[in-house]
C-alpha cells in the first residue's frame, strides 16, 4: 500500500482541485454577474488550497512530483477526490447544492485539522478555514433563498438535493487511510463529524423548506479511487488536455 499520508493528502487536494475546476466552469456563464465573480473567487480559493495540499503530497512522496505534476499528469484511477465534487454542475441550483453539501463537511473537517500533529497540515487548514467559512455562508444563503423561493426554484433545489444526497455518505466513511491518520493524530475520524453535519443540514433544509431524502444509501469509491463516476474522466480530459497534447509545456 502507498504511504497513507500521501494517499490522504491526495484525497484533500484532489477534492479541492476537482471541485475548483467544476466551479470554474461557470466562469462567464453564471446567471448574474455578481454570482459569476463570486463563483470564480470560490474556484480560485479551492485551487489555491489544492496547490498547498498537492504540493505537500509531492513533498511527502519524495519522487520529485510537484502539485502541477500531480494535478495534470495523473489519470482518473489515480484521483482520490470525493464522488460528490466530480458530479456535473447541472443548473445553478444543483451547483450551489453541491457546494453547500461540500462546504458543510469541508468546514467542520478543516476545523478538526487545526489541532493536527502535522504542523504543515494544521497550517493549511488554518488558512483554508477562513476561506471556507465564507464559502459555507454564501452557499447556505443561496440554498435557503432558492429552496424557499419560487415554485420553480424550490423544485430545482429539491431535485438537486435528491440527486446529490447519495454522495453525502462518502464524506463520512472511515477506511484504513483515515484510521492511520487518526492514530497519528494527524486528522479527525470522518465518521465522528456526521452528527454535527446532520444537525446543520437539517436546520438549513428546514429553513429552505426542503425535504431530506429518507434513504441513506451512499455511493462510494471516490476517495479510495476504486470507482469514480463516469463524469471525472470527461472533466479531466478538458482540464488536462493541454498537458496531454503538449507534455511539460510551460509559459
Amino acid at each position: 500500500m502507498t504511504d497513507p499520508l500521501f494517499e490522504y493528502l491526495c484525497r484533500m487536494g484532489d477534492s479541492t482541485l476537482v471541485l475548483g475546476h467544476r466551479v470554474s466552469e461557470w466562469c462567464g456563464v453564471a446567471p448574474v454577474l455578481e454570482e459569476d465573480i463570486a463563483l470564480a473567487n470560490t474556484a480560485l480559493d479551492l485551487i489555491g488550497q489544492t496547490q498547498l495540499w498537492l504540493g505537500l503530497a509531492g513533498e511527502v512522496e519524495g519522487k520529485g512530483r510537484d502539485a502541477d505534476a500531480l494535478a495534470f499528469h495523473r489519470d482518473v484511477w489515480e484521483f482520490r477526490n470525493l464522488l460528490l465534487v466530480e458530479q456535473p454542475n447541472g443548473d445553478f441550483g444543483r451547483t450551489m447544492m453541491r457546494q453547500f453539501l461540500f462546504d458543510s463537511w469541508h468546514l467542520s473537517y478543516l476545523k478538526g485539522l487545526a489541532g493536527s500533529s502535522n504542523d504543515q497540515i494544521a497550517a493549511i487548514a488554518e488558512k483554508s478555514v477562513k476561506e471556507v467559512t465564507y464559502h459555507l455562508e454564501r452557499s447556505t444563503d443561496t440554498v435557503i433563498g432558492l429552496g424557499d423561493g419560487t415554485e420553480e426554484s424550490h423544485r430545482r433545489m429539491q431535485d438537486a438535493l435528491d440527486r446529490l444526497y447519495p454522495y453525502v455518505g462518502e464524506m463520512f466513511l472511515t477506511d484504513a487511510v483515515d484510521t492511520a491518520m487518526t492514530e497519528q493524530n494527524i486528522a479527525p475520524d470522518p465518521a465522528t463529524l456526521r452528527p454535527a453535519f446532520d444537525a446543520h443540514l437539517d436546520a438549513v433544509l428546514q429553513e429552505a423548506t426542503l425535504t431530506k431524502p429518507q434513504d441513506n444509501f451512499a455511493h462510494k469509491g471516490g476517495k479510495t479511487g476504486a470507482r469514480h463516476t463516469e463524469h471525472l474522466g470527461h472533466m479531466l480530459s478538458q482540464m488536462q488536455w493541454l498537458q496531454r497534447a503538449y507534455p511539460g509545456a510551460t509559459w
Partner: protein
Amino acid sequence: MSSPESSPYKDTKASIHEETRKTEWPLWEIFIRGQHGLSHRHVGSLHAADAEMAIKNARDVYTRRNEGVSIWAVEAADIAASSPEEKGALYEPSNDKVYRHPTFFNIPDDVGAM
C-alpha cells in the same frame, strides 16, 4: 452592474428609467473603506436581493484584491441626488468667487507642506 437598466434614484427627474425588470434585483451603491482612519469611498454598484446579499456581493466584486476593511451598501433608490438640470443655480455662482480659495496668502517656507 449586471444590467444597463439601473434602478432610479428616488425623486430625481434626472434619472428617469424604465421600471426595473421584475426579475432584476434592486441596485445597490457600494462604499468601501480602504484603511482604518480613511473615509468610505464610492466604488461602484451591483445588484442584490437584500442588504445582506449586497454586502456579500460587494465582498466578492470589490474586495477581491484586498481593497477594504469595511463595506457600506446603500440601496440606490434611497439616495437623494441633485439634478443635472439645476447645475447652473447650484454650482455656477461659485465660479467667480476666487476669494473663497485661500490662494492670496504667502506661506512661510518653515511651515512645510500643507
